[in-house]
């Protein structure tokens, strides 16, 4: 790791000031940034630690409205009793991220700011029609995720929270890479008063996306059988050492079927 200067921010305002130093980066759980610095893929001059900012932490549930602070860990999301009552799907998703030690440190803010094309949370946020709250504005999930490791965030912009309305039905199904636990394909399905939303992670060659084909079929009937014979195009799917585009296109359908069945059985 190259040399770096560490700063512990005490508030969002303090962090916004500290980030102006050199080529500074925010540090949240460090579960992505520190490995990247160890391999010198990332070499910020300064780190601004967001972990000690109380206003970025915690989960609020009021009726069906859920707000998750950016520095809330995957472990906290996976085990929060209030959240599990209104939206068990997102708690289950958090419990599938990496391993326990990663979940104790990694945060929702860090995960979405990083926007790894195989990360889990981006699928949840797209399917839940969530809003990303920053220290400057509110960004709908669909405008926030902009491709591979790209988001709408400015360099000095801090994700402060994620907020959404819990839909009556939701579920996530993931086909994990057996070594890394990241999604080879993951599908998050929701059915709310505004219809059906289906978001896919791990498969697209430009990051998380909504599957129009699957949404159209499920809008007619929210049942796994409605997906028999649906064709998911492989044109924009990723091919890598783990799986081909065709394989991923098929996995999208398989995971979507499982997710619909789980959503119908769940809430």
């Amino acid at each position: 790791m190259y040399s770096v200067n560490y700063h512990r921010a005490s508030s969002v305002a303090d962090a916004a000031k500290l980030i102006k130093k050199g080529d500074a980066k925010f540090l949240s759980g460090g579960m992505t940034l520190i490995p990247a610095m160890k391999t010198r893929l990332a070499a910020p001059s300064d780190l601004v630690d967001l972990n000690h900012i109380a206003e970025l932490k915690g989960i609020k549930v009021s009726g069906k409205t859920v707000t998750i602070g950016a520095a809330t860990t995957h472990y906290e999301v996976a085990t929060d009793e209030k959240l599990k009552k209104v939206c068990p799907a997102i708690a289950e998703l958090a419990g599938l991220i990496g391993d326990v030690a990663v979940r104790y440190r990694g945060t929702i803010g860090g995960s979405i700011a990083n926007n790894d094309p195989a990360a889990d949370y981006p699928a949840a946020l797209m399917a839940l029609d969530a809003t990303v709250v920053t220290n400057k504005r509110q960004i709908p999930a669909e405008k926030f995720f902009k491709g591979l490791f790209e988001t709408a965030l400015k360099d000095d912009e801090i994700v402060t929270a994620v907020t959404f309305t819990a839909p009556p039905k939701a579920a996530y199904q993931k086909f994990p890479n057996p070594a890394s636990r990241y999604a080879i394909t993951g599908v998050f399905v929701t059915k709310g008063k505004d219809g059906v939303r289906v978001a896919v992670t791990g498969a697209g060659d430009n990051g998380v996306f909504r599957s129009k084909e699957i949404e159209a079929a499920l809008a007619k009937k929210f049942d796994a059988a409605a997906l028999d014979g649906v064709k998911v195009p492989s044109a924009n799917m990723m091919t890598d050492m783990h799986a081909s585009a065709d394989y991923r296109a098929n996995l999208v359908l398989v995971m979507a079927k499982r997710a619909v069945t789980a959503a119908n059985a769940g809430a």
Partner: protein
Amino acid sequence: MSEVSLVVNGRRVSGVVEDRTLLVHFLREHLGLTGTHVGCDTSQCGACVVHVDGKAVKSCTMLAAQASGSTVVTIEGLADGADLHPVQAAFRENHALQCGFCTPGMIMASVDIINRHPDGLDEATVREELEGNICRCTGYHNIVKAVLAASKAMNKSKAKGKSASRAKQAA
């Protein structure tokens, strides 16, 4: 440079370190606590697991500066004098180590797992929860057996402690 100050295995320690110093290097090189191992550079193997404020985390993926102000327990801090911690004892009894490289991380992760499951554990849960710890000798079978045995032993001694304190209250 950062001034870090933390409690490690019950002892208050401090030092001035480069900001890029990983917690694992602070423990091994500054404090001489070489029980905590480094087995990979991808945050995947779990050989470096220690408890920070009661949670089992990968000390290779945390800066010492991030841990400043925290309470840390390493494998050296588990035993009570000459008495092994129940998880250490169970690893020994069940032949849960071969070369021993993964063992400190396995044990620290296992203590955390047992703490989080006060009602006991089954094999599937142990296997799933140990996902972040890799044994290059592939001795998983006996590791899982040891964790199950330790969980039983710890729950039994807790139950005994409870009934003893109840008996005391009654008396």
